[in-house]
């Protein structure tokens, strides 16, 4: 099993009346609430935590892109990855991912990832995302063109990385008459690609076609299972079985000395993440056209409740969050692995407004008392993929 230490870099200093006054920390929560004196310390603290994960033996350290939100302070994940590139030496440097569909110029992503690949001596993993719904409001990009822009931008970036002479690119959403990206990436043919999915059947099929890694977002185990099965089915229809390490479960995780202590210490921070950080209405998550009709139907029929309606105990019961003593966390991860068939985990261990000391204890206990058991065991024997649907 591979473990990635993922950071959201939240801004935890929300006003006490945040929940009554604001519908979301994203898009319209005024940036007057950002205190630069606190912000500067946060960036250095969060980068220290990512560097420490490299030292503790996590396989990857991961950052991602969000805009106009207190939920995550990384409008440019590539800048964070650059800050980490020369301060770490072993872990994969995972950008999960660049929101290529909302960029006017996808070639800038091709250039920056290629530079990062050199700065990190070939440790970069490149995630590509469409961007969250509210980012289409924030960037005035038409969400009805989201999927087309994503696929065109992806095709352009891959071609820019793998073509050794200038070429012209013309597609419905982009036109570049001279594409000739310097530098090319260090890794051949290009850095590994991760794609987060949130249930879109188009994404599952697309990721399987490209043989990329498919990563879940926070969801109940029953829903994640449907997504991973969808990805495996799509691969089976294409005639192959994906490597379990290309199926990646994302989960906030907290370990403490005992179950009781873990829940007592995690509860408030988990509630911050799901009730404040992820507070958002469907109107900003699903702008028109962002979802296809079939994916929207799937989402509506899945019966997933909004996070606001889920208590800490609900989140644990649904498997959206994992917490407990080292032994019980180890058992939960085994159970999840056996049920879902993943071979890699993307762990959020600085959960919501969790203070630094607690994050460090969480990381140390996990690295010393949970991770080793998963290192010694061979990768799980996955169940054969279900037969393709007719």
């Amino acid at each position, binding site marked *: 099993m591979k473990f990635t230490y993922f950071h959201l870099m939240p801004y935890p200093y929300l006003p006490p009346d945040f929940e009554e006054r604001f519908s979301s920390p994203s898009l319209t929560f005024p940036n007057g609430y950002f205190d630069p004196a606190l912000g500067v310390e946060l960036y250095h603290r969060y980068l220290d935590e990512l560097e420490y994960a490299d030292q503790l033996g996590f396989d990857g350290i991961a950052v991602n892109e969000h805009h106009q939100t207190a939920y995550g302070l990384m409008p440019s994940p590539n800048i964070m990855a650059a800050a980490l590139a020369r301060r770490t030496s072993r872990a994969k440097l995972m950008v999960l991912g660049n929101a290529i569909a909302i960029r006017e110029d996808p070639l800038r992503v091709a250039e920056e990832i290629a530079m990062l690949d050199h700065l990190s001596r070939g440790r970069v993993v490149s995630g590509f995302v469409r961007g969250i719904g509210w980012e289409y409001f924030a960037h*005035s990009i038409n969400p009805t063109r989201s999927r087309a822009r994503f696929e065109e931008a992806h095709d352009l970036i891959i071609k820019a990385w793998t073509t050794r002479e200038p070429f012209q690119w013309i597609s419905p959403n982009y036109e570049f008459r001279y594409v000739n990206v310097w530098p090319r990436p260090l890794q051949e043919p290009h850095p590994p690609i991760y794609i987060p999915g949130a249930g879109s059947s188009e994404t599952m099929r697309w990721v399987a076609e490209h043989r990329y890694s498919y990563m879940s977002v926070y969801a109940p185990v029953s829903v994640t299972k449907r997504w991973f099965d969808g990805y495996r089915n799509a691969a089976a229809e294409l005639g192959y079985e994906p490597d379990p390490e290309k199926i990646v479960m994302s989960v906030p995780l907290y370990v403490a000395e005992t179950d009781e202590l873990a829940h007592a210490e995690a509860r408030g921070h988990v509630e911050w993440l799901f009730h404040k950080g992820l507070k958002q209405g469907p109107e900003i998550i699903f702008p028109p056209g962002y979802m296809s009709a079939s994916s929207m139907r799937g989402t509506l029929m899945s019966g997933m409740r909004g996070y606001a309606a889920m208590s800490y105990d609900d989140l644990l019961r649904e498997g959206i969050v994992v917490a407990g003593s080292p032994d019980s966390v180890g058992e939960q991860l085994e159970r999840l692995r056996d049920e879902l068939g993943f071979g890699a985990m993307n762990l959020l261990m600085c959960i919501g407004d969790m203070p630094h000391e607690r994050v460090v204890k969480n990381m140390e206990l996990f690295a010393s008392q949970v991770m080793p058991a998963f290192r010694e065991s061979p990768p799980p024997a996955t169940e054969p993929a279900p037969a393709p649907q007719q």
Partner: protein
Amino acid sequence: MSTDSQATDHHAVRPQRLAVSGGSISYLSAGSGPPLLFLHGGAGAGVWHEAHAIWAREHRVIAPDHPGFAGSDELAEVEGVDDLVYHYLDVIEALELERPALVGASFGGWVAAELAVAAPDRFRALVLLSPVGLRIPEHPIADVFFMRPDQLAQALFADPARAPALTPDVDTVLAAYRDQTALARFTWSPFMSNPKLHRRLGRIAVPTLVLWPEQDRIVPRAHAERYAQLIPGAGLETIPDCGHALHLEQPQAVAHAVGRFLRGAD
């Protein structure tokens, strides 16, 4: 051709299909007399409304669903309002509408204005019901995409009690999402406007009436005023006790104001 009794009964008017380039569209039609082409806004597609029935007493009313709305195919090649103009010129020809009166509500008002700019000889009269389409940065149009369904109903009607009840079953939500998607395709960016339209409105050479509802919480009055000012000879009337969903909230007042104007337009 429909009969008079069908024209006044909202339930008797059945959708019809018209083959167009790339697929087909759905439209409602009833009444007889000179043709009246009605272009709907973000709300109200696919329904024969009371205002349609009133107009159908004196006109052959044709109310098509825009591509991607209600019963019409998506027609992916119709990407923007410029494409919609050619689409409707084709529809007018296919349905053999001889110089129709053109009535457009909100987004449909924008499309109607663009049609009258592009083909001023093809229409008998133009009526714009609180149209969008002009870019006036100091008087922004409300962001309908940022509203929850309940907020949208509050914003569209002066008296939200007059809004249709919300039925949150999956099929209704999906149909509304499809309509919103079609609207976003044409209006997300530039938001609800063609930044060049104001320079072209002087080309409109047909009698024009602009109606603005007194409690419009979506489109500020400056937009109706600007249209009336830039279209030669256009009139501007205000409908009291009414929100942006003009013909849905005050069907009789709106239908009769339009009817009076059309009778005087010849």
